[in-house]
């Protein structure tokens, strides 16, 4: 049988397919397979998403169970309340502080450590594993150790002696946020190192050889081959680090005792919890959430545009 008759035969079969298959595709049972996931997605993602916006535009508060209360539409009032709140402004500033410390450190250390790992070295598997351990361990457990290390009489201050800050790190208005940013960098870095490492292993080796022939040293090869070669990954790292930075909660809740000292390490999500759940003012909490999500989406798109294109 030659090629043409096969094609013709196939086309004929396609035309003869029952209407059901032409409308729904070859395997309509696919709907039943994705159905459960889709229902869960509707109930636990799509609906809450719409509901979040609804709550944010209403005077939505928690009433006693069974009580019928009015929750009138209030337009942008919740948003205005949040924007005028000095605590929320401080939380927004803290996101900036977090990102300014976390992102450059993450990109720099991630690139350097991955480049160092991307060669035949003894103990390579050990290094990879040890960098990844903080990433897989629970924040709560790691914060417990950092609390102890950075306490007033902790090992960090013992080493620093007279250089130790007063008041100590976690209760110091200036140092509380940088410590949180450092903690997050330390905890997440191993993940970014592995992302970079995977990207570096996809850089064609000929590029390094060509650079070597042109007389480029190790540092120059790193700058002109490795760094541009993992550019896409850097975009991804910056976006993910930014999303993490906009959403930190456990650190200020636990490490600095509820956004302390005196609100200096307040985060948007911690504020969302305090306003929306502790104080029962869901409208305010949802407004913070909607603004935060919009900020994350817009910033990610901007980062992608600015950095992702060559």
């Amino acid at each position, binding site marked *: 049988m030659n090629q043409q008759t096969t094609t013709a035969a196939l086309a004929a079969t396609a035309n003869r397919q029952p209407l059901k298959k032409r409308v*729904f*595709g*070859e395997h309509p*049972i*696919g709907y039943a*397979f*994705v159905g459960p*996931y*889709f229902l*869960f997605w509707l109930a*636990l*993602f799509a*609906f*809450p998403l719409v509901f*979040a916006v609804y*709550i944010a535009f209403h005077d939505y508060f928690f009433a006693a*169970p069974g009580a019928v209360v009015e929750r009138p539409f209030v337009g942008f009032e919740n948003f205005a309340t949040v924007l005028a709140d000095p605590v929320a402004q401080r939380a927004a500033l803290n996101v900036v502080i977090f990102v300014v410390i976390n992102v450059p450190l993450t990109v720099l250390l991630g690139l350097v450590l991955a*480049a*160092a790992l991307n060669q035949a*070295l003894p*103990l390579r598997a050990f290094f990879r*594993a040890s*960098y*990844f351990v*903080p990433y*897989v*361990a*629970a*924040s*709560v*457990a*790691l914060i417990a*150790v*950092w*609390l*102890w*290390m950075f306490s007033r009489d902790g*090992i960090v201050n*013992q080493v620093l002696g007279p250089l130790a800050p007063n008041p100590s790190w976690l209760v110091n208005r200036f140092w509380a946020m940088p410590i949180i940013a450092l903690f997050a960098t*330390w905890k997440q*870095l191993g*993940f970014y190192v592995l*992302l970079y490492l*995977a990207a570096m*292993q*996809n850089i064609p*080796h000929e590029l390094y050889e060509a650079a070597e022939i042109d007389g480029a040293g190790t540092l120059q090869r790193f700058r002109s081959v490795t760094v541009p070669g993992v550019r896409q990954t850097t975009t*991804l790292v910056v976006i993910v680090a930014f999303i993490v930075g906009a959403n930190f909660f456990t650190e200020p*809740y636990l490490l600095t*005792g509820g956004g302390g000292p005196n609100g200096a390490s307040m985060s948007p*999500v911690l504020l*969302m919890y305090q306003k929306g*759940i502790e104080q029962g003012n*869901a409208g305010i*909490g*949802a407004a913070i959430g909607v603004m935060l*999500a919009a900020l994350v989406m817009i910033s*990610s*798109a901007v980062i*992608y545009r600015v950095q992702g294109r060559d």
Partner: protein
Amino acid sequence: MAESTQDLAETRTEVAKRSDRETTTAGSVARGRRITPGRILSLVLLLIGALVFLFPFWYMVVGAFQLKPDPTVAGAFPDPSTLTVDNFIAINERLNLLVTLRNSLIFTLGVIVSTLVLGLLAGYALAVLNFRGRGAVFGIVLLSLILPFQLLMIPLFVMIVRTYGLADTFLGMILPFAVNATAVFIFRQFFLAVPQSLFDAARVDGAGELRILLRVAVPIARPAILTAVLVTFIGPWNEFLWPFLITKQANLQPLAVALANFISTVAGSTANPVGAILAGATVLAIPVVVLFLVFQRYFQASDLGAGVKG
């Protein structure tokens, strides 16, 4: 935003290709055996890095076994004869480790089971079955990857706690984690790489799709299932925010929540039981770290990135 998630999915495939790359660069590996200043510098860098990454873990375990943890530098390397398990007994009296560990396990297993059932069905359909709207469903999965969980915190809390009265239940704890896009990705990716003729052969034999999924697809997908289980395990086991929001009864709290509550209760009190806290942190962190070390090769950086919520 959807594009950046696409990158994440692409990175995942790149990671999968990495092992091939490692064999092709074998030539350069052999040549790299020379001892050069660059290699020594790399090793020193990596060693310092490993020390920074691992020291807090060492310090946590050491502190957990010291009756009165010593904050001086010498305290980090104690005389083995002074070590004791008293801290574990003390934290067990406060938190009831058996109960909180059981709660962590039920929460985690519930998420794993729902993830596997929903994820295998959806992943198989998205990779193997042909039906109209398949692309749209995949888009939906992508979307739930990029939106931060924190935005949904308030509406989910209202729905699950206020509307459905699922506070202090395992069901309420598990539900928001059942929509696990990462697992769908892992399975879709895996089934796409399997020759479709395998499924066609089963169809010719007259097997229905559910039967093919259970008898053909699931048995060959064992490595992907293991990866999905491991990646999924980390999320709920370490999760603090959501179970913290919805559990008030101590006998239903997972260990991460119980330990965090203990830390914030005793913080600031003069009799700060550091040893007991560190013992609790050790019990919380060690299972995941051990799992990671044992099954290291099943962990991919890009899978994990999407697997960890909040």
